[in-house]
Protein backbone atom coordinates (compact mmCIF):
# COMPACT_ATOMS: atom_id res chain seq x y z
CA UNK A 1 0.00 0.00 0.00
CA UNK A 2 1.58 3.23 -1.07
CA UNK A 3 0.55 6.23 1.00
CA UNK A 4 2.58 9.22 0.10
CA UNK A 5 2.03 12.97 0.17
CA UNK A 6 0.22 13.94 -2.96
CA UNK A 7 1.71 16.78 -4.92
CA UNK A 8 -0.66 19.43 -6.16
CA UNK A 9 -2.19 17.73 -9.14
CA UNK A 10 -2.23 18.95 -12.64
CA UNK A 11 -5.00 17.43 -14.64
CA UNK A 12 -4.05 16.04 -17.98
CA UNK A 13 -6.32 17.39 -20.63
CA UNK A 14 -7.34 14.98 -23.30
CA UNK A 15 -5.87 15.50 -26.74
CA UNK A 16 -8.73 15.80 -29.19
CA UNK A 17 -8.34 13.00 -31.69
CA UNK A 18 -10.88 12.71 -33.13
CA UNK A 19 -12.21 16.07 -32.03
CA UNK A 20 -15.30 16.07 -29.88
CA UNK A 21 -18.41 17.76 -31.11
CA UNK A 22 -19.45 18.48 -27.53
CA UNK A 23 -18.01 21.57 -25.85
CA UNK A 24 -16.57 21.31 -22.38
CA UNK A 25 -13.09 20.07 -21.67
CA UNK A 26 -12.37 16.40 -21.17
CA UNK A 27 -9.68 15.17 -18.84
CA UNK A 28 -7.76 11.93 -18.60
CA UNK A 29 -8.69 10.06 -15.41
CA UNK A 30 -5.89 8.52 -13.36
CA UNK A 31 -6.14 4.81 -14.02
CA UNK A 32 -4.75 1.64 -12.54
CA UNK A 33 -4.68 -1.40 -14.81
CA UNK A 34 -3.69 -4.74 -13.41
CA UNK A 35 -3.98 -8.27 -14.59
CA UNK A 36 -4.58 -11.56 -12.90
CA UNK A 37 -4.71 -14.95 -14.50
CA UNK A 38 -8.42 -14.62 -15.15
CA UNK A 39 -9.20 -10.98 -15.63
CA UNK A 40 -8.10 -7.44 -16.28
CA UNK A 41 -8.89 -4.90 -13.57
CA UNK A 42 -9.28 -1.27 -14.50
CA UNK A 43 -9.79 1.36 -11.78
CA UNK A 44 -10.35 5.02 -12.63
CA UNK A 45 -10.65 8.15 -10.51
CA UNK A 46 -13.52 10.24 -11.86
CA UNK A 47 -14.60 12.52 -9.04
CA UNK A 48 -17.90 14.26 -9.62
CA UNK A 49 -19.21 11.60 -11.99
CA UNK A 50 -22.20 9.64 -10.70
CA UNK A 51 -22.95 6.11 -11.81
CA UNK A 52 -25.61 7.12 -14.30
CA UNK A 53 -23.28 9.44 -16.15
CA UNK A 54 -20.66 6.81 -16.94
CA UNK A 55 -20.57 5.22 -20.39
CA UNK A 56 -18.46 2.15 -21.03
CA UNK A 57 -17.97 0.57 -24.42
CA UNK A 58 -15.85 -2.29 -25.64
CA UNK A 59 -15.50 -2.67 -29.38
CA UNK A 60 -12.73 -4.30 -31.39
CA UNK A 61 -10.69 -4.70 -28.23
CA UNK A 62 -10.81 -1.00 -27.50
CA UNK A 63 -12.24 -0.14 -24.10
CA UNK A 64 -13.65 3.38 -23.91
CA UNK A 65 -14.82 4.99 -20.69
CA UNK A 66 -16.50 8.37 -20.59
CA UNK A 67 -17.79 10.08 -17.48
CA UNK A 68 -19.53 13.43 -17.43
CA UNK A 69 -20.15 15.77 -14.54
CA UNK A 70 -23.52 17.36 -13.93
CA UNK A 71 -22.98 21.06 -14.36
CA UNK A 72 -26.46 21.81 -13.00
CA UNK A 73 -25.00 21.18 -9.53
CA UNK A 74 -23.18 24.46 -10.02
CA UNK A 75 -26.20 26.49 -11.00
CA UNK A 76 -26.19 29.82 -9.26
CA UNK A 77 -22.56 29.41 -8.20
CA UNK A 78 -20.23 32.27 -8.95
CA UNK A 79 -16.56 31.25 -9.05
CA UNK A 80 -14.36 33.46 -6.87
CA UNK A 81 -11.22 31.39 -6.53
CA UNK A 82 -10.08 28.38 -8.54
CA UNK A 83 -7.20 25.97 -8.19
CA UNK A 84 -8.27 23.08 -10.36
CA UNK A 85 -10.22 22.78 -13.60
CA UNK A 86 -13.62 21.17 -13.80
CA UNK A 87 -14.67 18.91 -16.62
CA UNK A 88 -15.59 15.53 -17.95
CA UNK A 89 -13.44 12.44 -18.25
CA UNK A 90 -12.62 10.25 -21.21
CA UNK A 91 -10.11 7.52 -21.79
CA UNK A 92 -9.62 4.60 -24.19
CA UNK A 93 -7.40 1.57 -23.94
CA UNK A 94 -6.52 -1.00 -26.53
CA UNK A 95 -6.70 -4.34 -24.82
CA UNK A 96 -4.44 -7.15 -25.84
CA UNK A 97 -6.57 -9.86 -24.34
CA UNK A 98 -9.88 -11.12 -25.61
CA UNK A 99 -12.49 -10.28 -23.03
CA UNK A 100 -15.71 -12.12 -22.23
CA UNK A 101 -17.88 -9.08 -22.74
CA UNK A 102 -21.00 -10.61 -21.26
CA UNK A 103 -19.17 -11.04 -17.96
CA UNK A 104 -17.75 -7.54 -17.52
CA UNK A 105 -18.69 -6.01 -14.21
CA UNK A 106 -18.48 -2.38 -13.22
CA UNK A 107 -19.06 -0.67 -9.91
CA UNK A 108 -18.47 2.86 -8.79
CA UNK A 109 -17.95 4.25 -5.33
CA UNK A 110 -16.93 7.71 -4.14
CA UNK A 111 -16.04 8.77 -7.65
CA UNK A 112 -13.91 5.70 -8.38
CA UNK A 113 -14.94 3.32 -11.17
CA UNK A 114 -13.81 -0.31 -10.93
CA UNK A 115 -14.06 -2.56 -13.94
CA UNK A 116 -13.41 -6.26 -13.98
CA UNK A 117 -12.92 -7.68 -17.46
CA UNK A 118 -12.75 -11.47 -17.45
CA UNK A 119 -10.53 -12.93 -20.13
CA UNK A 120 -12.09 -15.21 -22.69
CA UNK A 121 -11.99 -16.12 -26.37
CA UNK A 122 -14.55 -14.85 -28.84
CA UNK A 123 -16.58 -11.79 -27.97
CA UNK A 124 -19.03 -9.47 -29.67
CA UNK A 125 -19.18 -5.70 -29.15
CA UNK A 126 -21.66 -4.89 -26.41
CA UNK A 127 -22.73 -1.99 -24.20
CA UNK A 128 -22.01 -2.43 -20.50
CA UNK A 129 -24.19 -1.19 -17.68
CA UNK A 130 -22.76 -0.01 -14.38
CA UNK A 131 -24.13 -1.74 -11.29
Amino acid at each position, binding site marked *: *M*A*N*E*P*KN*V*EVKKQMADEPEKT*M*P*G*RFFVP*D*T*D*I*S*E*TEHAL*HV*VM*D*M*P*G*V*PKERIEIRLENNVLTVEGT*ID*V*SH*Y*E*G*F*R*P*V*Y*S*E*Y*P*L*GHYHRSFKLSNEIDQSAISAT*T*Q*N*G*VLSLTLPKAEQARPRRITVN
Partner: protein
Amino acid sequence: MFGNLENTMKAISALQSAMEHTTGSNWFGGRTTSRGANPPINVFEKDDSVVVVAELPGVNKEDIVIQVKDQSLRLSGKREIQRDEGTSAHRLERRGYEFDRSLNLPFRIDADHIEANYRDGVLALVLPRAAEDKPHTVAVN
Protein backbone atom coordinates in the same frame (compact mmCIF):
# COMPACT_ATOMS: atom_id res chain seq x y z
CA MET B 1 -35.28 19.07 -25.92
CA PHE B 2 -32.44 20.24 -28.11
CA GLY B 3 -32.75 23.59 -26.43
CA ASN B 4 -31.97 22.01 -23.08
CA LEU B 5 -28.95 20.14 -24.43
CA GLU B 6 -27.55 23.29 -25.91
CA ASN B 7 -28.07 25.15 -22.65
CA THR B 8 -26.20 22.45 -20.75
CA MET B 9 -23.31 22.59 -23.18
CA LYS B 10 -23.16 26.35 -22.97
CA ALA B 11 -23.44 26.15 -19.20
CA ILE B 12 -20.37 24.00 -18.77
CA SER B 13 -18.29 26.05 -21.17
CA ALA B 14 -19.38 29.20 -19.39
CA LEU B 15 -18.58 27.73 -16.00
CA GLN B 16 -15.15 26.50 -17.09
CA SER B 17 -14.40 29.88 -18.60
CA ALA B 18 -15.54 31.76 -15.49
CA MET B 19 -13.43 29.51 -13.31
CA GLU B 20 -10.36 30.03 -15.48
CA HIS B 21 -10.65 33.73 -14.83
CA THR B 22 -10.54 33.17 -11.11
CA THR B 23 -7.54 30.84 -11.08
CA GLY B 24 -5.44 31.83 -8.12
CA SER B 25 -7.47 34.98 -7.60
CA ASN B 26 -6.93 37.30 -4.69
CA TRP B 27 -10.13 36.30 -2.92
CA PHE B 28 -8.26 34.98 0.09
CA GLY B 29 -6.22 38.15 0.30
CA GLY B 30 -3.16 36.51 -1.23
CA ARG B 31 -2.78 33.84 1.40
CA THR B 32 -5.06 30.86 1.46
CA THR B 33 -3.50 28.40 3.74
CA SER B 34 -1.88 28.32 7.10
CA ARG B 35 -1.00 24.71 6.50
CA GLY B 36 -0.81 22.33 3.56
CA ALA B 37 -1.53 22.63 -0.13
CA ASN B 38 -3.82 19.65 -0.60
CA PRO B 39 -6.46 19.19 -1.69
CA PRO B 40 -6.80 21.76 -4.46
CA ILE B 41 -10.01 23.71 -3.92
CA ASN B 42 -12.45 25.77 -5.88
CA VAL B 43 -14.44 28.44 -4.12
CA PHE B 44 -17.80 29.78 -5.23
CA GLU B 45 -20.26 32.30 -3.89
CA LYS B 46 -23.93 31.53 -3.84
CA ASP B 47 -26.40 33.88 -2.23
CA ASP B 48 -25.07 34.58 1.26
CA SER B 49 -22.87 31.53 1.42
CA VAL B 50 -19.48 30.52 0.23
CA VAL B 51 -19.06 27.00 -1.15
CA VAL B 52 -15.67 25.31 -1.00
CA VAL B 53 -15.36 22.32 -3.33
CA ALA B 54 -12.57 19.74 -3.36
CA GLU B 55 -12.12 16.55 -5.34
CA LEU B 56 -11.37 13.65 -3.02
CA PRO B 57 -11.94 10.50 -5.05
CA GLY B 58 -11.98 7.22 -3.18
CA VAL B 59 -11.97 8.69 0.30
CA ASN B 60 -14.25 7.18 2.91
CA LYS B 61 -16.63 9.78 4.27
CA GLU B 62 -15.63 8.78 7.80
CA ASP B 63 -12.00 9.58 7.01
CA ILE B 64 -12.75 13.23 6.24
CA VAL B 65 -12.18 15.57 9.17
CA ILE B 66 -13.53 19.12 8.98
CA GLN B 67 -12.79 21.58 11.73
CA VAL B 68 -13.85 25.18 12.04
CA LYS B 69 -12.42 27.74 14.38
CA ASP B 70 -13.09 31.46 14.07
CA GLN B 71 -12.29 32.20 10.43
CA SER B 72 -10.18 29.15 9.89
CA LEU B 73 -11.41 25.99 8.22
CA ARG B 74 -9.34 22.82 8.34
CA LEU B 75 -9.78 19.82 6.04
CA SER B 76 -7.88 16.64 6.65
CA GLY B 77 -8.04 12.97 5.85
CA LYS B 78 -6.56 10.28 3.73
CA ARG B 79 -7.21 7.97 0.83
CA GLU B 80 -5.69 4.53 0.82
CA ILE B 81 -5.30 2.33 -2.19
CA GLN B 82 -5.77 -1.37 -1.82
CA ARG B 83 -3.36 -3.24 -4.00
CA ASP B 84 -3.87 -6.95 -4.31
CA GLU B 85 -0.93 -9.29 -4.18
CA GLY B 86 -0.55 -11.60 -7.13
CA THR B 87 -1.61 -9.14 -9.74
CA SER B 88 0.70 -7.83 -12.39
CA ALA B 89 0.31 -4.12 -12.85
CA HIS B 90 0.26 -2.52 -16.28
CA ARG B 91 -0.40 0.96 -15.01
CA LEU B 92 -0.46 2.47 -11.54
CA GLU B 93 -1.42 6.12 -11.81
CA ARG B 94 -3.67 6.43 -8.80
CA ARG B 95 -2.03 7.31 -5.53
CA GLY B 96 -2.89 6.95 -1.90
CA TYR B 97 -2.66 10.33 -0.26
CA GLU B 98 -3.08 12.25 2.93
CA PHE B 99 -4.29 15.80 3.06
CA ASP B 100 -4.32 18.43 5.74
CA ARG B 101 -5.16 21.96 4.72
CA SER B 102 -6.27 25.04 6.62
CA LEU B 103 -8.00 27.91 4.93
CA ASN B 104 -8.05 31.45 6.26
CA LEU B 105 -11.44 32.72 5.18
CA PRO B 106 -11.83 36.44 4.60
CA PHE B 107 -15.12 36.55 6.55
CA ARG B 108 -16.74 35.09 9.64
CA ILE B 109 -18.76 31.92 9.29
CA ASP B 110 -22.02 30.97 10.92
CA ALA B 111 -20.44 27.77 12.22
CA ASP B 112 -23.74 26.29 13.35
CA HIS B 113 -25.06 26.16 9.82
CA ILE B 114 -22.18 24.70 7.88
CA GLU B 115 -23.15 21.91 5.51
CA ALA B 116 -20.71 19.30 4.32
CA ASN B 117 -21.73 17.05 1.43
CA TYR B 118 -19.57 14.30 0.03
CA ARG B 119 -20.87 12.68 -3.12
CA ASP B 120 -19.15 10.79 -5.94
CA GLY B 121 -15.76 11.76 -4.58
CA VAL B 122 -16.46 15.48 -4.37
CA LEU B 123 -16.63 17.32 -1.06
CA ALA B 124 -18.71 20.50 -1.01
CA LEU B 125 -18.70 22.70 2.08
CA VAL B 126 -21.43 25.31 2.26
CA LEU B 127 -20.31 28.06 4.61
CA PRO B 128 -22.93 30.67 5.44
CA ARG B 129 -21.57 34.10 6.30
CA ALA B 130 -22.05 35.09 9.91
CA ALA B 131 -24.87 37.60 10.23
CA GLU B 132 -22.55 40.39 11.28
CA ASP B 133 -20.43 39.83 8.17
CA LYS B 134 -23.21 40.03 5.65
CA PRO B 135 -23.09 43.08 3.44
CA HIS B 136 -25.76 45.63 4.29
CA THR B 137 -27.57 47.16 1.40
CA VAL B 138 -27.61 50.91 1.52
CA ALA B 139 -30.52 52.79 0.02
CA VAL B 140 -29.69 55.87 -1.95
CA ASN B 141 -31.96 58.81 -1.20
